[in-house]
């Protein structure tokens, strides 16, 4: 617990139900710094967690809290002495934010469809190991900047309109 007390999160990761990485970020230069180590760790982590849904595990000196839904696994890692409840709060924030972004349909296909927003959410929750925000609604407010509340069928129309408006604007500016 010594050293830089703000660097709490050592890594965050989303995997699919085959253990493939969808998104993963490791924040500590000294922990799992190479891709090979990361992949090995993830494989191990997945093998140990995908069958038993038990929230928490210690692996290779890291405390990992996790959560799964349909075909996705969410992980947040901290060092062995970290307050597990802080890590859990970050995991909950990650999951709830994504759930809000995807309107409760947390599954792989939708995550990939909205990957850019999910990436932004990752970035808003944790900045290089420091917890930037742990409140899902405020995270979502900052990252979900698409046109909301429009049924899918009509959304394309709205987008067409918007891009038309933009094109018009550009032609006037020229």
């Amino acid at each position, binding site marked *: 617990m010594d050293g830089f*007390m703000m660097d709490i999160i050592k890594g965050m990761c989303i995997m699919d139900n085959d253990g493939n990485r969808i998104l993963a970020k490791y924040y500590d230069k000294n922990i799992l710094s190479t891709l090979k180590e990361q992949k090995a760790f993830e494989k191990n982590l997945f093998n140990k967690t995908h069958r038993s849904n038990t929230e928490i*595990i210690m692996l290779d000196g890291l405390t990992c809290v996790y959560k799964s839904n349909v075909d996705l696994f969410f992980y947040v890692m901290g060092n062995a002495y970290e307050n*597990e409840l*802080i890590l859990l709060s970050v995991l909950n924030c990650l999951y709830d934010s994504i759930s809000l972004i995807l309107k409760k349909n947390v599954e792989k296909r939708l995550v990939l469809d909205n990957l850019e927003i999910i990436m932004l959410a990752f970035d808003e929750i944790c*900045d290089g190991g*420091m917890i930037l925000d*742990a409140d899902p609604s405020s995270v979502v407010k*900052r990252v979900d900047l698409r046109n909301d509340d429009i049924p899918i069928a009509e959304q394309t129309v709205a987008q067409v309109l918007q891009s038309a408006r933009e*094109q018009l604007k550009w032609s006037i500016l020229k």
Partner: protein
Amino acid sequence: MGSFRREKDEEEDGPTNAYQNLEKTSVLQETRTFNETPVNARKCIHILTKILYLINQGEQLVAREATDCFFAMTKLFQSKDVVLRRMVYLGIKELSSIAEDVIIVTSSLTKDMTGKEDLYRAAAIRALCSITDHTMLQAVERYMKQCIVDKNAAVSCAALVSSLRLANTAGDVVKRWANEAQEALNSDNIMVQYHALGLLYHIRKADRLAVSKLVNKLTRGSLKSPYAVCMLIRIACKLIEEEDIPAEELADSPLYTFIESCLRHKSEMVIYEAAHAIVNMKNVNPRLLSPAFSILQLFCSSVKATLRFAAVRTLNKVAMTHPAAVTTCNLDLEGLITDTNRSVATLAITTLLKTGAESSVERLMKQISTFVAEISDEFKVVVVHAICALCAKYPRKHTVLMNFLSGMLREEGGLEYKTSIVDTIITIIEENVDAKESGLSHLCEFIEDCEHVSLAVRILHLLGKEGPFAATPSKYIRFIYNRVILESPIVRAAAVTALAQFGASCPALLANILVLLGRCQMDLDDEVRDRATYYLTILNSAKPELYKNYIIERENCSLALLEKALTDHLNGDLQNHFDISIVPKAAIVKPEITNDVMMVTSAPRAPKITREEESAARLAQLPGIQVLGPIHRSTAPIQLTESETEYTVQCIKHIFAQHVVFQFDCLNTLAEQFLENVRVELTLPEGYTARAVIPCPKLAYNELQTTFVIVEFPPDASSSIATFGATLRFVVKDCDPNTGEPDSDEGYDDEYMLEDLDITVADQIQKTKKNNFQVAWDAADSEEWLQAEDTFVLSAVNNLQDAVNTIIKLLGLGAANLSEKVHEGTHLHTVLCSGTFRGGVEVLVRAKLALSEGVTLNLTVRSTDQDVAELITAAIG
């Protein structure tokens, strides 16, 4: 069915997953789209996402690719699309470490950071700080200060977090923002509070008084953020530890009162942090502990697995320091043995084992036996380790534990699990004489049906070592000879060696052993036949001396050092014969004992190497080191300075046959100084001759560099015990603390006094462990060996165990036949120990102790060198 599933898979992954089978070059090609005007935001977002996805999957971009991509990205600043802009920031952050000339976007980012759009500002600050270096920070300093106190929480957070990042590289600039951070601390937003506290603490952490003021102020006020409170608890703990407040005063300390009050906080996170902090405090009495333990106890029965885990892990960690308090939670812990989370269950078991009373061992074992069958191997290993610790604590319970272990041994399990059990049984046998017979017979049964070659070999070796001294050695012969009939060549060879041990140590069995070994000569395998012939020849010679040197006490050289010595020999003058006795014996490397049971590690452990092997590699780089011959011993590092001084120096003594190499590891802790030509000057005692000084040319701030001094021992061993005065000498150049570059070429000489160094007897002795001391001792009663004897009264110690420990430590010898352990309640004890003095001089010591007023010691030393023998007797007096 199969085909249907495949179809379904394709349907799921095929068209919808745009991120499968992405190819780096083609995606980077697509960045051309960024140059189009007007910018097609949707398309560009998609391309950027693909690039970031690739990087996230571990794809490496080279500098040129990254730079091209980065520059293409800068075009996207034209677009007003919010998501696109945010993705650009993300891209800048990802690429900033690889691409060149990233500072080109500074002005665009500064514009966004100071602009009106709040959605841009926060993210722009963070992106900007990822590309800013020390020199450019001055330019944006004004904006940063404004942003820290911005009323938009996101902007303020971003500025604070970025400041914390920058504080590592540009500490002095960030220090000037303390006032703004202080203001931000008063914010209503919980995250702003947290980050402001983080920054303020970081700025002030070097100044204990300022930190203490900060904490005192905040503990009275009410921080709203649970994260900030957690952090404050940690800071408060650190202060308590630094001030070293004794337990009686702790209750009155405002810091403790604050932490204690956090036990009633509304956030579980804070409650746990406080409880965890209290139970981990150094000076704390049971009264102060009890509220914290009640909290942990409560958490043990929580529905949330994480809470249970947190509680039981904390209990496990402090089980050794506060066993009595942990025992109060035993009932709850027993409830957790059947927890669905196996980590929780295992932790609960090991905690119970750590704290269990002697009377409850049987009951616990019964509970565990049902549990053990259900858990995976890695958890079983943890349980086995806990049992091992328990057995060391209650040696009398060895029968119960041994039976339990042998039961586990019979069940299914992988190599690692079986190895840990065998290790445990061997440890028990070695530490507890009473457990020896039953332990050996359990192991014998195990090898009857053991699929792991490495384990069978180890057990056979152990049987060879311990079996001949058991009550009825003959009963082990059958087990060993069965291996010769049934097993693979490796095991057969080990069994032959074990048989020979019996032949050498038990004259009564010799005739039978000779017959068995004769049969082994018909073996199909070369190695087995060779061994059988070798041992037969020696045993037929009927010379006890040969038995001793070639069967019973075969000491192994350290292989790494043997290899080095052989290489040196081949490079040198081949006229001389190679002398194996100068190669240090392989020392037993004690595995690091970690109190933390944290388990489930799959990472391969670093191979264990001895200090000597480590330093041999290091010293090999020194010019002329070969002349000194192979290394005899390296001592543990000793500090020659206080820990928090301008320069810290530690010394390792490498002992050679006639020389000692002092290795000084120096650390410069002054940022504004650059040291050159750093060396240590020693004041040599009489008899010692300086041979070489190898200075360290440059020592920059916070770097660990090494300088060496080579000194030759005096010709007679008796004057080798001496004290050296030491001074660190160097040339100081002032330098810019940020760049580390010296300001000018001019420097001045300076020196720094170090603490004195000693060369002791123990430094010069490498400990050895004789399997059978008595044989070696009797064999040393001959012409070549010399004996010295003396009697002392040790007045400083008043019990036998302390006296034994002192003698072994003082002489640096290894004790044989468990003689380092004094049985309780005796007044007489004999310690048998042995070692090798530098130059390959063997030393055997028998120390007879008697307890009366003080401790009376009769010391007999046998050695091949008169000087050495006298030196050792003199060392005690």
